[in-house]
């Protein structure tokens, strides 16, 4: 039986369908679940993915209200029980506000934040991110190879990792800084949003929860790669090739592989 993954939708989430498609293409049984079903409607899932958007219109602060939503009780319980949890963009902001990532403080008392971008503006740019820790450190993406490079789209106004310097040092030292911004060859580059230490994604202590700001699901099909991408260029005139998973799809394939190679508790 395929692992059942809940794609958790809050009021204002807007990336649930492409996220569900990317998960399904990777072989998972992904179901969109609205917050109104409450935590009782979530507990039977094997894993949770919090997609991008603007949960609760980013009121008070990006991710802050959703982090306190009742439906997050099930996500937190699941994460603590070892289930896999991924947050993408706004979902990542929610995980930090919930204290699940990096998980160095009490629940719902964040020790880090994806704060407003340097320059204060929303940005939409194509990026690459590189796995910056050993694959064994992130069982949630057990299928990734060392130094894996994933293409994705940045689409956020608040993606700059911010934390006190001592916390940032600890995050790097203890392997929480799972992804950094890089070029297509994997060479680290300055984060486009001014993120501290060029971090694009964070994980928790056990590596079963991951928060990543860029959107791999928006670059998971050949047709939505940026212009000039060689895979996309080669697919021109070939609808089947253009509609095939590629690029960011490896993120979801690695997630799916985790259910067999690093079975969550």
């Amino acid at each position, binding site marked *: 039986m395929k692992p059942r993954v809940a794609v958790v939708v809050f009021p204002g989430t807007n990336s649930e369908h492409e996220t569900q498609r990317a998960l399904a293409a990777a072989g998972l049984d992904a179901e969109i679940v609205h917050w109104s079903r409450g935590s009782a409607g979530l507990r039977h899932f094997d894993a949770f993915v919090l997609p991008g958007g603007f949960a609760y219109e980013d009121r*008070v602060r990006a991710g802050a209200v959703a982090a306190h939503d009742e439906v997050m009780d099930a996500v937190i319980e699941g994460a603590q029980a070892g289930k896999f949890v991924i947050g993408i963009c706004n979902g990542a902001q929610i995980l930090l506000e919930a204290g699940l990532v990096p998980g160095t403080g009490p629940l719902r008392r964040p020790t880090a934040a994806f704060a407003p971008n340097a320059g204060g503006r929303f940005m939409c740019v194509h990026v690459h991110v590189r796995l910056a820790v050993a694959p064994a450190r992130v069982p949630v993406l057990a299928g990734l190879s060392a130094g894996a490079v994933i293409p994705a789209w940045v689409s956020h106004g608040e993606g700059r990792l911010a934390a006190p310097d001592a916390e940032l040092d600890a995050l790097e030292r203890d392997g929480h800084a799972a992804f950094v911004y890089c070029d297509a060859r994997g060479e680290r580059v300055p984060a486009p949003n001014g993120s501290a230490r060029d971090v694009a994604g964070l994980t928790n202590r056990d590596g079963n929860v991951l928060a990543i700001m860029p959107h791999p699901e928006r670059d998971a099909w050949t047709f939505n790669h940026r212009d000039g991408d060689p895979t996309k260029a080669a697919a021109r005139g070939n609808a089947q090739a253009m509609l095939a998973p590629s690029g960011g799809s490896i993120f979801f394939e690695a997630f799916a592989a985790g259910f067999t190679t690093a079975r969550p508790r």
Partner: protein
Amino acid sequence: MSELIERAYVITLTIPDNEAFTALTTLARMGLPVDAAVRSDVWIATVEAAHAAALDGTIGTIETVYNPNKHRLEIRSNARPLPGEVWITALDETPAITVSGRTVDGVRGIVRRTAWRLLDEHGADVPAGILDRATESFLCNPAFQKAIR
């Protein structure tokens, strides 16, 4: 150049504030005894004293900052929260020199903060301990923000 002074422009919605209501429902879920939440935008200007009166008038004409049809504007002569208020600001707060894209004579810097007041069922400020709990557990993320009391 005249003496520099601070002016705080506290702008509060007079129509229902969806963000404040959402904050209220979250605080209720957290078990905090709060009956109402009031949110204000606070624009703090460092301005040459000779231009302060003109700035007061100018702020009232920038409708992206203050719309008299839906806002109340309070002008304060110092940049400190009142008792019962908490102001939330970025740790790396950087003053701008324009107000909503407009340059105003005499303004040396302007920053924007968010003010919160939490009220009990009688319309009075909640005890300081309740405001502290709300601030520490919800209104302020200390990783990139600070709360000013």
